[in-house]
């Protein structure tokens, strides 16, 4: 599994070497990675920044979680309540508790219709529109993407 990659210590060493020279920038590309080290300005003691990426850039992005539910179009006459953040959608405040809302419930803009847990924080999802809950689209305790419709509401 281990790849011959750039380590943070390698980068620090490269910056230290450059810092003693008149050079203000270096670009390196190997089969494994791309690195750019650059001085921010001409002045003595000007700060450096370093930016690097895997040459296969996409491999790291493969770690991005796949959405568990399919994003759907919102039917005519209905309003979708989007997930405010990517995370885990919960229909109830605690396991075994009654869900915040079910189909047929009347909601106001402020009604909490679910929770999206992101980075250990519970983010309430508000209906955002007054009306009647027509459908709950996202399954309980499943990953959702930001903007994915969680519920359909018929606005009143």
């Amino acid at each position: 599994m281990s790849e011959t990659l750039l380590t943070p210590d390698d980068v620090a060493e490269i910056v230290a070497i450059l810092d003693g020279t008149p050079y203000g920038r270096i670009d390196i590309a190997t089969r494994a990675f791309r690195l750019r080290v650059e001085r921010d300005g001409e002045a003595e003691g000007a700060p450096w920044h370093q930016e690097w990426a895997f040459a296969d850039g996409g491999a790291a992005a493969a770690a991005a979680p796949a959405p568990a539910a399919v994003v759907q179009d919102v039917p005519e006459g209905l309003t979708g309540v989007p997930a405010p953040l990517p995370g885990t959608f919960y229909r109830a405040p605690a396991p075994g508790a009654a869900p915040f809302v079910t189909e047929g419930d009347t909601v106001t803009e402020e009604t909490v219709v679910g929770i999206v847990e992101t980075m250990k924080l519970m983010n309430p999802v508000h209906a955002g529109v007054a009306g009647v809950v027509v459908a709950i689209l996202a399954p309980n305790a499943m990953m959702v993407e930001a903007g994915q419709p969680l519920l359909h509401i018929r606005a009143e």
Partner: protein
Amino acid sequence: MIRRLFIANRGEIALRVLRTAKRLGITTILGVSEADAASLPARLADEVQLVGPAPSPLSYLNVDAVVAAAIAAKADAVHPGYGFLSENAGFSRALSAAGITLVGPDVSSLEAMGDKLMARQVGQQAGLPVVPGGEAATPQDALARARETGFPVLLKAVSGGGGKGMKRVDREEDLSAMIAMAMAEAQASFGDPRIYVERFVASGRHVEVQVLGDGHDAIHLGTRDCSIQRRFQKLVEEAPAPLLPDATRAGLEASAVALTRHLRYRGAGTVEFLVDADTGDFFFLEMNARIQVEHPVTEAITGVDLIEQQLLIAGGARLSLTQGAIQPHGHAIEVRINAEDADADFRPSPGTARRAAWPAGPGVRVDTHIATGGVVPPYYDSLMGKLIVHGATRADAVARLQAALGALQIEGLATTAPLHARIAADPRFVAGGVDTRFFDAFAATQEAR
């Protein structure tokens, strides 16, 4: 000697442990969840073992799964990092039953520091000052306690946490009404009416001492100040604690060593104190029996690799450092770069870093697992990286921090870097020695702006 080290963590701390282990010639096996299988630490580890699906209760917090993965990896030791299972006595026992060494203290130390009341008791046994006060089962007890400690006092629920049920009482005549209310609230919130009466420290600083012990000897590596916190989450840490009277600093360090010896503590630990900024009095709070997020500021001023010390001690070595060998120089500051939008009530901002240009150069260290294209998954905490600066004086370190934050550019995610740039420019921060009320006051002036 450790030959095969299993790392039971993720993110920047997994990478931090990997770097030192590699330098020491130790084979590294990283336990990863499905969400972290292509992360930077996973690419740099010698071997990778899957510990479970993305959600941490099923992976990084699952004792059985992590122990099974460490056994499958034929590891002789496990480094738990911080958080997750790092202070879990059950995890420690399960590893030892499997014949695997935990890079951390003995289970007796984990248990002694396991809850706050127990830690307070042990601290008192070791001769450390604790915040004056005590438990009160009845209103009469509470009144007696309050008279001992003096007003103002703080009433806390014994079973409480996170500031819930805390009440400040300034005058004796208000006490009986407040006690009744506090007990009722404690009963309603926690099912336990017992309250705790404690002296209220108006201007408190959070100062901690890094210690190392090998079960026989103990030394300290100086102080860190972590007073800049938001809702008990640390944002900025520095070493040494600035503008502390010499007597206070010496007292803190001696107390921390006394506790470490009392526990016959093995490994790296941190002894946390509340320092009354008005009087210089200090009180023991708790001991963290693990490596801490902010350990690099201590490394910067002492030149000691704390992960290396942990690995050596866990491998059975005696302390190779003496107190006299620790000669701190200069000043170091760390800021936590979190994937959070500080302008939107610190809303988490997971996703992909389209671009991650981190500062570099002399006196600048960045501990991060996020390069350009790196992913911050929504399952775990929001720490993306830590920026650590070191200067000959605190003023040098502050100037270096300001310059480094100017060079930092992360695109694709909201981060706390702009917030840190504003803190670094705040005159109270530049002056140094702020107390734990700093962040709320700072946030209020930001809103008024």
